[in-house]
């Protein structure tokens, strides 16, 4: 018993020294259970978000209004699915399989980003998602490029490059619509009104109310606070909105000279918690769809496995 304790203590000491030196933690390194669990939770939530996010965007593929727009949207959604695959693989380095991760999503143990529980109701929503949702994700992910777990940090570096494309393409849709007919302008503002607040909520609760923050900071998984990142996002987005004539739906939004950032109005945290806890507009729809498709595809996965096994057997018999 005593001996185990010493071994554990030694391990923890080594780990923390590494973290403090700023070294990356790699899959083969010893790490505390809490660190591993925190990462699995965060990375799988991230992976699931990329995948579930394909649903609201996919909702407009067949109705994309030009061949160019359709290609950009198809390519974007593929990128997101690719991010999902990439993050699932990164999470697997922590000793959990993709099918376990998907199972956790289906049982509700694992979450995905709350933002995808909102519906895409007009074409400008595709612009708003790219510009605001990917825009908010980038702020978060840029900060995660220096996260302490090596595979996660490398995944973020790769993913960030693509996300900034998405953000620009989304903004382009909004700009085009704001330069268009009155109806297009109304669609764009309508999308702005519906996506602005949920985008701010993507950064999570205010710093004082964030339950997992302590360890994540100590282990350098997280390097900036929720509010810090939220302000960064607001500051870069306000001017972009002004340039194309969109109004930010927050009458309390004001430049704060002393703090050097924008102050925003009160976020509706009741809506936030209600949605996280399952009662957003699309929670049931998104999850039910993922489960249904996964179950319907079982025969394909079984066939692929059976075929692989047959071929393997044939090799050994010859």
């Amino acid at each position, binding site marked *: 018993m005593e001996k185990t304790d010493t071994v554990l203590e030694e391990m923890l000491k080594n780990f923390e020294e590494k973290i403090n030196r700023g070294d990356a933690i790699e899959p083969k390194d010893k790490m505390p259970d809490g660190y591993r669990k925190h990462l699995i939770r965060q990375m799988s939530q991230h992976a699931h978000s990329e*995948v579930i996010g*394909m*649903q609201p965007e*996919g909702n407009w*593929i*067949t*109705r994309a*209004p*030009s*061949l*160019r*727009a*359709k*290609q950009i949207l*198809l*390519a974007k*959604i*593929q990128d997101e*699915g*690719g991010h*999902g*695959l990439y993050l699932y693989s990164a999470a697997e380095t922590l000793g959990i399989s993709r099918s376990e991760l998907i199972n956790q999503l289906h049982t509700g143990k694992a979450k995905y980003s709350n933002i995808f529980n909102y519906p895409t109701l007009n*074409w400008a929503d595709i612009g708003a998602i790219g510009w605001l949702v990917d825009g908010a994700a980038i702020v978060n992910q840029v900060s995660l490029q220096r996260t302490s777990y090596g595979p996660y940090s490398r995944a973020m570096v790769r993913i960030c490059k693509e996300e900034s494309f998405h953000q620009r393409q989304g903004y382009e849709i909004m700009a*085009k*619509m704001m330069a*268009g*007919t009155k*109806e*297009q302008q109304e669609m764009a503002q309508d999308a702005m009104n519906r996506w602005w607040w949920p985008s701010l909520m993507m950064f999570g609760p205010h710093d004082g109310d964030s339950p997992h923050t302590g360890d994540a900071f100590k282990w350098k998984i997280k390097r900036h606070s929720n509010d810090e990142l939220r302000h960064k996002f607001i500051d870069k987005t306000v001017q972009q909105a002004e340039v194309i004539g969109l109004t930010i739906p927050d009458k309390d939004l004001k430049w704060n000279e002393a703090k050097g950032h924008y102050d925003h109005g009160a976020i509706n945290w009741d809506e936030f918690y209600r949605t996280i806890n399952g009662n957003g507009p699309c929670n049931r729809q998104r999850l039910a*769809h*993922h489960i249904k*498709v996964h179950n*319907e*595809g*079982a*025969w*394909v*996965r*079984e*066939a*692929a496995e*059976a*075929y692989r096994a*047959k071929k393997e057997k044939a090799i050994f018999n010859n």
Partner: protein
Amino acid sequence: MTQQQALYKYCLRLGDNALVQSYRLSEWCSNGPILEEDLALTNFALDMTGRAQALLTYAGKIDGNNKTDDDLAYRRGEREFYNILMHELPYGDFANTIARLFYSATFEYLFFSGLMNSTDETLAAIAAKSIKEVKYHMAHATDWVLRLGDGTEESHRRMQNGISENWMFTGEMFEMDEVETLLAGVSVVVSEIKAKWLSQVSKVMAEATLTLPTDTYMQTGGRNGIHTEYLGHILSEMQYLQRAYPTATW
């Protein structure tokens, strides 16, 4: 029919094949049996949308009425679409989609290999780009035909269904009319690639333990604008924004 009209229609037929096929494949987004297949099928859809764009842009130039690729994709009605019927059928289960992709990609591989030698430089260039994509579509579809055909009992049954149900829509790929005749040297003589297509398809079927259908009745009509009931629904969805807001640009 003039040479110019023939070329216009030839490009529309090829462009519409790519456009409508891409529409159905893109419906697999968030619906694939595994994430990798969502990505593969929508990636093929992306290739085909690009091909449709190139062909419809070219058609617009030939026509001489200043029509853009989008005008042709989003402002024509059902009777002015000339894709083959197979591409507009609902996508069905995964095996059905694979069967169709297998038939058409095997055909397109032979077709674009031929079109690369077209005396029309634009078509030859489009073919040269397409052949790289189509080679991959064919390899992917073939791979799944083998896995599903020789996988489990259920996958075999479904794959055989897909192969059988789509069979009567394959004849249209090899049809030729006045358009092709007028475009000698420009167009591909599809009747000449039929034997190669059949031999490749049969070879894969045999390896996949599947049976090649023997019925000889073939559906026809799409190439002349007589479609199934499904195309109208595709167009009403695809063209919705352009039709509802005709003065808007997107």
